[in-house]
């Protein structure tokens, strides 16, 4: 980095290869959403990466300037060495022969001074730049995280979890690498090349000019390396990614793999991607070998030429011997950084790609935006009714591709009513639920909660009003109690346990190795899907919302579990507004009102009894369902 790198060191150090960052592949979500739009990646607005970089560096201007200044002086101290050697040889030694030790003492003192100054400055530089780097990374990580959280669900359904995770991990890593090593290296390399160039010119302008001309072929070689390695780099990234996908997919699906005897077929398929990755890796290594070889040949040719020229000048007495000595020492140093440059180019390339992707993510605006002037929900007057009135008014929803999922839709649910929505897959039930939970905003029309448009409510206010329990029952790392407490942070242990008891989850939780304190990641590997759903319910109970939406929330429960939930719901839902989406008709029994949906429209609407007694679809379904029962 900043060592007075002499030949051996810089000549050939390190494998300098494109380290292919392994893209994080997140586990597939339990419920892969339908792809509403098939964009591969989000577009990056032109200039976004640069603007992002500016906004990140801006606050640290002062410290960056200090770091630059420090490294400037440090490099000067560092490069003074050979110059002092030249002075020693041309002045101090002859002076010493004349019994004048003054120059030697001065030179030695100067050398010592530089030897002490340069490490101190180096120390300061590392400390200052590390602080800047870490602050920038901290800021960027935070921005990615907060932004990903702010982005709407439609985005998350399109942009898979693995991609967001790799933005926050491997892309950040690429930047970290460049910031902590690459930039510093480039800076010192650049400075040392500048210093040495100036010194060479000062020492002897004729030799200096000849030496500097060598920059032209070296730059050409570096450029060709850069473009060639970029191609290889892309290829190796792609092959690494498909290798990882294949690997994780096989290991995560080891049961079906073994049950369906896929081992041999998988071996072969894996061998293909494995070989591709090997070829790409080797190609990358060969590119570096080529670059190192070519630039080293060029450098050595130049050195020989300069020595020859210098020798003639010395013989002609137009150059001092000490100057030539210093010159050759510097010349070797001038060519040292060529390998470092290869390293830098590699990490620069991956960091630039990473920054672009991050900028793309950050430039994406959430479609479900926070209101500029949030309104508040009217206070709940009547204490017996904890619910709120929900009204869909001409609500229409279409995907961005234009495909209409929900034609203009009107529905009024009075406060305190429990509504069950049934219908076949694709009837639009879940869309209604997600619109009400404001996971999406309607394309046209509006949804009002006690008269207030959902879009005018700030998130915390909205979430006090509406809570949704979904079929997917993800558990966060932490204890079971903590998972339930997500419903209401700050809830006491009694409240948490009571919620679990109310929903019929207490027994199974208590039976876990550490009860409510069981870490779900460590010991909870065998918490079944049904049990997870119970935890999700307990969470919702604890949240105590005015409007509760249950989207297929009982699909994995067995009959006793479902019955327990229903019993609990009867008491819990009393006075609350609830929308229950279900494909099991058993759930319907606790509803005050049933809506049957078909292709985005309500085709039947009435109390359960009315519909059962009628002759519509619901009556048919219900009859079939009764028949299947005990």
């Amino acid at each position: 980095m900043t060592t007075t790198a002499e030949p051996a060191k810089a000549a050939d150090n390190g494998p300098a290869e494109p380290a292919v960052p392994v893209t994080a592949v997140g586990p597939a979500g339990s419920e892969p959403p339908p792809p509403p739009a098939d964009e591969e990646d989000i577009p990056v607005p032109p200039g976004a990466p640069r603007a992002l970089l500016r906004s990140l560096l801006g606050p640290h201007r002062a410290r960056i300037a200090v770091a630059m200044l420090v490294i400037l002086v440090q490099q000067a101290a560092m490069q003074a060495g050979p110059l002092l050697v030249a002075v020693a040889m041309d002045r101090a030694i002859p002076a010493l022969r004349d019994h004048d030790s003054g120059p030697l003492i001065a030179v030695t003192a100067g050398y010592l001074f530089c030897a002490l100054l340069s490490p101190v400055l180096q120390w300061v530089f590392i400390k200052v730049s590390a602080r800047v780097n870490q602050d920038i990374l901290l800021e960027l990580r935070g921005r990615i995280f907060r932004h990903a959280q702010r982005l709407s669900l439609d985005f998350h359904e399109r942009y898979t979890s693995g991609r967001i995770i790799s933005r926050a991990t491997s892309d950040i890593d690429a930047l970290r690498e460049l910031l902590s090593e690459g930039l510093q290296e480039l800076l010192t390399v650049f400075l040392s090349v500048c210093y040495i160039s100036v010194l060479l010119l000062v020492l002897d302008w004729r030799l200096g000019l000849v030496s500097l001309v060598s920059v032209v072929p070296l730059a050409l070689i570096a450029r060709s390396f850069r473009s060639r390695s970029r191609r290889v780099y892309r290829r190796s990234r792609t092959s690494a990614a498909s290798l990882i996908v294949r690997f994780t997919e096989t290991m995560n699906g080891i049961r079906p793999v073994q049950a369906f005897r896929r081992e041999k077929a998988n071996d072969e398929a894996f061998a293909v991607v494995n070989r591709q990755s090997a070829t790409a890796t080797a190609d990358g290594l060969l590119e570096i070998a080529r670059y190192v070889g070519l630039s080293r040949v060029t450098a050595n040719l130049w050195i020989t030429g300069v020595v020859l020229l210098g020798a003639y000048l010395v013989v002609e007495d137009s150059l001092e011997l000490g100057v030539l000595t210093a010159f050759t020492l510097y010349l070797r140093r001038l060519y040292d950084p060529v390998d470092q440059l290869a390293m830098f180019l590699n990490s620069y390339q991956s960091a630039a790609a990473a920054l672009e992707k991050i900028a793309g993510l950050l430039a994406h605006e959430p479609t479900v935006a926070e209101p500029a002037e949030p309104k508040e929900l009217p206070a709940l007057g009547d204490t017996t009714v904890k619910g709120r009135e929900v009204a869909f008014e001409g609500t229409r929803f279409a995907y961005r591709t234009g495909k209409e999922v929900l034609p203009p839709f009107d529905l009024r649910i009075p406060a305190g009513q429990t509504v069950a929505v049934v219908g076949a897959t694709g009837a639009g039930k879940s869309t209604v639920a997600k619109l009400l939970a404001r996971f999406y905003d309607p394309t046209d029309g509006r949804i009002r909660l006690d008269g207030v448009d959902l879009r005018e409510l700030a998130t915390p206010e909205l979430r006090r009003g509406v809570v949704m329990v979904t079929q997917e029952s993800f558990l966060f790392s932490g204890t079971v109690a903590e998972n339930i407490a997500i419903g209401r942070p700050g809830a006491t242990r009694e409240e948490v346990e009571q919620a679990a008891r109310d929903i019929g989850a207490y027994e199974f939780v208590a039976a876990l190795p550490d009860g409510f304190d069981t870490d779900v990641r460590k010991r909870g590997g065998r918490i079944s899907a049904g049990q997870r759903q119970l935890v999700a319910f307990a969470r919702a109970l604890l949240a105590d919302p005015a409007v509760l939406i249950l989207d297929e929330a009982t699909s994995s429960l067995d009959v006793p579990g479902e019955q327990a939930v229903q019993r609990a719901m009867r008491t819990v839902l009393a006075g609350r507004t609830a929308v229950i989406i279900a494909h099991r008709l058993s759930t319907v029994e606790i509803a005050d009102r049933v809506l049957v949906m078909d292709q985005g429209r309500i085709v039947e609407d009435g109390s359960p009894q009315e519909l059962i007694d009628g002759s519509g679809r619901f009556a048919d379904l219900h009859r079939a369902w009764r028949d299947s029962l005990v």
Partner: protein
Amino acid sequence: MAENRHDTDNPPTDGTEKTDETAGPGAAAAPRRSTVRSLLRLWPYARAVRGRLTVSVTAATLGMLSTLAVPVILGRIVDGPLATRDLAALWPLVGLLLLVGLLEAGLFYTRRVVLARPLAGLETAMRGDLFAKLQRLPVSFHDRWGSGQLLSRATADMYTMRLFLAFPLVFLIVNSVMFLAGTAVMFTQDWRLALIALAPVVPLFVLTRSFEHGYSGASRRAQDQNGDLATVVEESVLGIRILKAFGRHRSMAERFRAQSHELRRTELHKAHLLANLWAVIVGLPEIVLACALAVGAYLVAHDELSAGSLVAFLSTALALRWPVESLGWLLAYANEAATATDRFFEVLDEPDTPDPGTATGLAAPDGIRFTGVRFRYPDAPADSPDLLSGIDLHVRSGETMALVGATGSGKTTLTALLPRLYEATAGTITLDGRDIRDLPRQRLRETVAVAFEEPTLFSATVRENVLMGAPGAGDEQLRSALATAQADFVARLPEGPDTEVGEQGLSLSGGQRQRLALARAVVGDPAFLVLDDPLSALDVHTEALVERALREVLGTTTALVVAHRPSTVLLADRVAVLADGRIEAVGTHQELLRDCPHYRELMSGEAALAPEGSAAP
């Protein structure tokens, strides 16, 4: 030297990989084996490249020696032709300089080129072996090891090992040679100066080693914290619906903020250690050189040393700084590679599940018979009872048996014993009279088809995903299997059954995946069929249709169906109730409703419900 650190520090990590390194089974308490012994285990793989490795080491050594030769030649030029103004003598020396320069470049090129393809090939071979081994290890192994752990072994660890062979291994040898050669050169120049120049070697070596110790601790910590951070990100994305539904992203962000600050602290600590080290590494040799310069100049002035020798000496001394400083890093890297090797062989040393079965066919039609089957998970707490504690069950040939039990009673586990995804702890299971342990596993799994509760699809076409249940089956079978599973949506996919699905393809809904998994199980008319709650994600309409079609398939096979609901139970001829690790009762749906209170509770949810009246289907 800088680059070295650069390289050693950056194996491809994705942050999540190395997180639970310490939590990895066996990794926590295992005593560290000697680095050398661990690395020697790489020999079977390295053997294939030993010729190339030798060439590379030789090329690197010669390259380094030519590098060392350059200052000597320069010294000669200064002392000889230039001192005497003898141009004729200059030419051979300049020619030599050119030759050595070209040689140096050529050798460095060779060092890299000879190893590029062979080492990439070696990495591929090791990874292929790991993959093949992992696929054949029992499911219980995979229960213990997270896929992230395995992935880091297949990627980051492989990279570490390859890099070790390509670079640290070569340079451990080369640098030692070079150090000795350089020392010899210095001593030939002037022994007094040589002693001065060598003075910092020992302290530098000790310092870098001890620094390495502290630094590797800090960087392990940073890696862990990085992993924790990645976990928070991962969870916040996977659980986004919950966080949004409850408006809880702020508390998650708080957690993220706290952890990223912690990481920043660790990183700054790392930088602090690094700054200290660099200060010493940069400073100490410079100070020593200052002394050497003073002494050298004095000697030259008193004609005890030639000017050329001083130049050559200073160049050599500078040239030797790198091999000394690098030793610490190289050893650290060797350590890391040893760990990676251990982690690799940890998997490869895992004993294969014996598969001594030789029976080719089945005996008389007898169906499935469980006799005294017991099972407990290897990682179950010692004081817990066996999950299955003596299962006796007979599924008659051609019969469909429903398996019913409370959540967590072991239904899924019981079904996993049949294709030997888990091995029963005790007891026997027979298929048509043949003990499943007497059948080669391959043969057994051809005989038993399974649809799992969690429908996993692989990155392949729908056709491939379904037909993997019956290699060699054609379009006809595909069509009928899809029809049975009511997977008519397949026809509407962009490319029909040739549409890519899975991680890298189109994502399907839970119900759609479940239907494909069902099609995969029933394709090719398996003799024995195991279905684990095969209809849970289907809506009422589809469920009814699938049931109707499935009934036909079930008519021709012997089947065990895990059921949660009455509608699924009705597919079966008889029902077995699993409770407390045993089969509590077997009978028809009606009989059990009448006689088995537990069953009644499971089916209706109400223990006290009277059986009469509700029985008429």
